[in-house]
């Protein structure tokens, strides 16, 4: 057991009780421990009532996103050593309703994701399980970066627009829409445009860029949104100046 300890200040909220509070826990310090390890220590040895989400512990599942010292982060990827000597403040992701302790309600996020149809849309959909839609490495390269999203919601916690406009579709969902729009195998661009070009879509984004800063997978959702804006403006003027042209 380590002799050194670190203090965790953990956000606590029980919907049936009074308002939120911070509770301090003294946990052992280890060089190779991440914040999630410390939370699990609290859960296992100090206070079993603490609620938080986690799963893979390797930055893949996107479940353990929280505010660590005010910054949205995957707690499985934030080492205690980077915040020594502490205390380390752990809170639920901001801009989301808190269900209990560190657990946020992600239903709104899931609905927004659903709106942008984040899957391949084909006009010639077939039941043939062996059907293939071929793609070159160059075509893959156009959208690959935007396909790395793990839906961890850190970008929503970093986005000040989400904090003011509930209806804003948000960075991850818009980046995902752009990801499929750039995919050479997809034919659903027109269906997504209705959602991403509405007031609560790409035009609500003011390019603060914090979403890209906090993204653990370097997806750059801010970049995806600006690219979608550029494309949208180009399509608009093209339609305006060439009304006779055939629309796909």
């Amino acid at each position, binding site marked *: 057991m380590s002799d050194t300890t670190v203090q965790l200040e953990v956000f606590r*909220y029980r*919907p*049936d009780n009074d*308002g*939120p509070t911070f509770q301090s826990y003294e946990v052992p310090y280890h060089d190779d421990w991440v914040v999630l390890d410390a939370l699990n220590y609290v859960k296992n040895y100090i206070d079993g009532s603490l609620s938080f989400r986690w799963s893979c512990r390797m930055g893949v599942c996107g479940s353990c996103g929280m505010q660590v010292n*005010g910054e949205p982060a995957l707690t499985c990827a934030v080492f205690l050593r980077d915040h020594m000597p502490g205390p380390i403040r752990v809170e*639920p992701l*901001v*801009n*989301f*309703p*808190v*269900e209990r302790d560190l657990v946020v*309600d992600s239903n709104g996020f899931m609905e927004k994701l659903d709106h942008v149809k984040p899957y391949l849309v084909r006009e010639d959909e077939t039941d043939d399980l062996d059907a293939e839609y071929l793609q070159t490495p*160059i075509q893959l*390269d*156009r959208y690959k*970066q935007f396909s790395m999203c793990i839906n961890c919601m850190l970008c929503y916690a970093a986005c*000040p627009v*989400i*904090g*003011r406009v509930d209806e804003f579709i948000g960075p991850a969902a818009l980046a995902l829409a752009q990801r499929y729009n750039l995919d050479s195998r997809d034919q659903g661009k027109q269906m997504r445009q209705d959602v991403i070009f509405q007031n609560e879509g790409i035009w609500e984004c*003011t*390019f*603060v*860029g*914090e979403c*890209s*800063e906090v993204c653990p997978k370097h997806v*750059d959702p*801010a*970049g995806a949104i*600006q*690219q979608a*804006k*550029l*494309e949208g403006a180009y399509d608009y003027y093209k339609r305006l100046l060439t009304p006779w042209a055939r629309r796909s």
Partner: protein
Amino acid sequence: MNRPLDRRLGWTWWTLKGSYFRIFLREATSAFILAEIVFFMLLIHKAGQDAESYLAYRDFLWHPLMVVFHLVALAFALWHTITFFLIAPSALPSQVAGRRIPAAFIIGQQFAGLAAVSLLVILWVAWVGAT
């Protein structure tokens, strides 16, 4: 009774950390640009009137406090320009004709363009001043 707690950043988001504040300040630079445009439009308006009101307005623009304002506006305009150039690569498509465009190339092109336009303006002003 289930009562999810509302924890949104809200309208004071830009006060919460340095990176937010810098972005807020970047957007606020537009106020200085707007003010300079108004001063310039008024200068043109005065030029269309009698010489006396034009010279009085020109003196007002050269007042030490106004010169400080112009310098602050210039600093903000340059800051906005530089930060805009630096983030431009992520706003542009990553490929042109199937080839990746390096971010440094896009940034460099913008600075080169700014330098070229600035040089032309300086030469034009110098030429007008000499004739």
